[in-house]
């Protein structure tokens, strides 16, 4: 054999091998081996939004528990989580690292609205699932244009819907006054309410007031709302202004039905500073079991959560709802992986995530269920209302479903 022939043979062999290898990879599932599935995640462990960091830690702890118990369908979860400091360019970099370098199977519960917006297009171009994102914006449930992205928690609009249903059913002659933050968060809430009220919206809403996050107070807006004759106050404000609003309504003796958005229903951060007495009879929504609520003291789901926290995340704060959130969303993913069986291809992960039917999870409020479908990328759309009794939130009434008109 001449030397040229040997080279030619070697070359063709090499090309052939490369082709075979490529075919093998194509048939394979990225990030998945016989014993492991690799899942990517970003979270702000540092920076302004680092309070959310505990969610990532709770998720990691839960996957550790699953692995200790033998994994899912014989595969352990390799959870790769990076800090993005809530900065969109860092998120892009970290996510590209996860997908192109670490070769994860998919992304799960990446946190933040701007950060997820920055990778939204990329994920859908790469056709990698961006599953159960941790944000309340409404745009994550758009399977037609973004079939690889799915939300998780009730959206702001969904919550608005629920208040609308409550008002329509329980408040005859409602006159609604709205105070909302003048940005997409506030507008989402208002849109949800208006959609929920339907044709009645024009008639029922008597006044809309806005504020900017740079405003020192919202006192004048509250006075305007009172003077409009409203008997329902739809309060769409972040904690600082929510506390001001509660205080001011009490001060000027305005006693409407006070609907306070979920964003600001923390007892410690909002109601206490506003005055617990002033906060009496405010109505808000919940979908998770609050770990500080004595109602759940003997609840099996709560006890399991507590045992999990003590064993796998002992440094975690037992009063932080973020730890309940992380625990619950991780269980949601475990359900998806179980449904996938042995086919952990990206297509099947998305397909299974979009076919969850009536799933109850231990730390969701009784009756709240996870439901998805090929055209429904909003997993949790049910919430329950609670009234503040001067000391704590007391759940009442039925479970509301925002997907029902």
């Amino acid at each position: 054999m001449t030397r040229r022939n040997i080279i030619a043979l070697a070359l063709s062999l090499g090309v052939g091998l490369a082709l075979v290898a490529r075919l093998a990879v194509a048939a394979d599932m990225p990030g998945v081996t016989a014993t492991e599935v690799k899942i990517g995640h970003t979270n702000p462990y540092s920076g302004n939004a680092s309070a959310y960091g505990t969610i990532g830690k709770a998720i990691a702890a839960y996957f550790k528990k699953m692995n200790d118990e033998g994994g899912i369908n014989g595969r352990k979860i390799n959870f790769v989580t990076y800090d993005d400091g809530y900065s969109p360019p860092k998120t892009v970099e970290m996510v590209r690292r996860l997908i192109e370098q670490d070769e994860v199977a998919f992304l799960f519960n990446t946190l933040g609205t701007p950060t997820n917006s920055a990778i939204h297009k990329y994920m859908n171009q790469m056709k990698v699932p961006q599953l159960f994102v941790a944000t309340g914006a409404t745009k994550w449930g758009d399977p037609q244009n973004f079939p690889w992205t799915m939300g998780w928690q009730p959206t702001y609009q969904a919550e608005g819907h629920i208040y609308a249903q409550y008002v329509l059913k329980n408040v005859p002659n409602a006159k609604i006054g709205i105070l909302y933050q003048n940005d997409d968060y506030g507008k989402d809430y208002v849109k949800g309410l208006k959609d929920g009220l339907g044709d009645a919206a024009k008639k029922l809403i008597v006044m809309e007031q806005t504020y900017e996050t740079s405003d020192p107070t919202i006192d004048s807006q509250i006075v305007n709302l009172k003077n409009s004759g409203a008997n329902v106050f739809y309060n769409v404000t972040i904690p600082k202004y929510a506390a001001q609003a509660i205080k001011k309504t009490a001060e000027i003796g305005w006693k409407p039905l006070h609907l306070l958005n979920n964003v600001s229903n923390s007892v410690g951060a909002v109601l206490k500073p506003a005055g617990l007495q002033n906060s009496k009879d405010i109505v808000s929504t919940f979908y998770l079991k609050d770990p500080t609520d004595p109602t759940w003291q003997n609840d099996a789901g709560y006890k399991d959560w507590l045992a999990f926290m003590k064993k796998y995340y002992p440094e975690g704060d037992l009063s932080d709802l973020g730890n309940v959130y992380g625990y619950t969303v991780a269980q949601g993913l475990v359900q998806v992986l179980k449904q996938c069986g042995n086919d952990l291809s990206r297509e099947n992960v998305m397909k299974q995530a979009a076919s969850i039917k009536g799933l109850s999870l231990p730390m969701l409020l009784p009756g709240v269920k996870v439901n998805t479908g090929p055209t429904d990328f909003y997993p949790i759309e049910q919430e329950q209302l609670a009234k503040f009794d001067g000391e704590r939130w007391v759940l009442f009434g039925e479970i509301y479903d925002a997907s029902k008109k």
Partner: protein
Amino acid sequence: MSGAGLRRAVVLAAVVVACVLPFVLSNFRLFQFTQVFIYAIALLGLNILTGFNGQISLGHGAFYAVGAYTTAIMIDKWNVPYGWTIPVAGLLCLVVGFLFGIPALRLEGLYLALATFALALAIPQILKYFEHWTGGSQGIVLSKPRAPFGLTLNPDQWLYFVTLGVLLVLFVLAANLLSRRTGRAIVAIRDNPIAAQAMGVNNALYKSLTFGVSAAYTGVAGALSAVAIAFVAPDTFNVFLSITFLVGIVIGGLASISGAVFGALFIQFVPNWAQDISKAAPWAIYGIFLITFMYAMPRGIAGSLRLVLGRLARLSGGTRRVA
């Protein structure tokens, strides 16, 4: 080989390596190096102001934001090709920087630092305020450009070369500017403003102009970042970004052009390494890196390299004389 010759050879070698990288590195690494080039342009801008002219700015993140948003809004609202938006962003920042430089004339040292710091604090809120243009806190989503003229480069390779090209042009311009009369005037104002004035330098004009040029560089970097990330949002341009820039120029080397590249490498890669070393306390590790660098190289990476190169040049000169 003389010191200057050696330096020229090193720069040339670096450019050659930079041109080969896209064909050996993964797309993800290329994206990281594109970020390095973008940071390097921003750092050079800040270094012209702080290192060469002695005006401290803690607010260059704001000019970076103005550049990024100029590009994003022009592409998003008016469908302008991204290539045209970059010089516009630079020009706009030149004007904004010049105008900001005029009142800044009355402020020296730390007082100027505080005034610029206020700029950095204000910018995210200002961006949210003009929601109609800026998309509020949701930001603006763009598309990644593809390589034109049927070039067989993928978008990451193309962007890499675009940024590298802009970087080289801006670096050559800066080197020319700083090594001539203008540059000497800029440095003289830093070293002794009264003497500079006595020599006939118009301090006020030069200082405002330096501010403008500096802002223009940083604005161009911001514009490139908007194209590379394909997304802008107020959360990107927080105070921490401005401080990161300052860290970059000090670590890289004050009053040094090549220092901008070293500084950019530092601010791009060291936080990632810190995270790989310790998930629990990445910023503590980052702090250790920072202290170590400052302790080992008090004049920045570029300053230390200059020393080493100088010694090498003298050594090679010395041996020749012996032989």
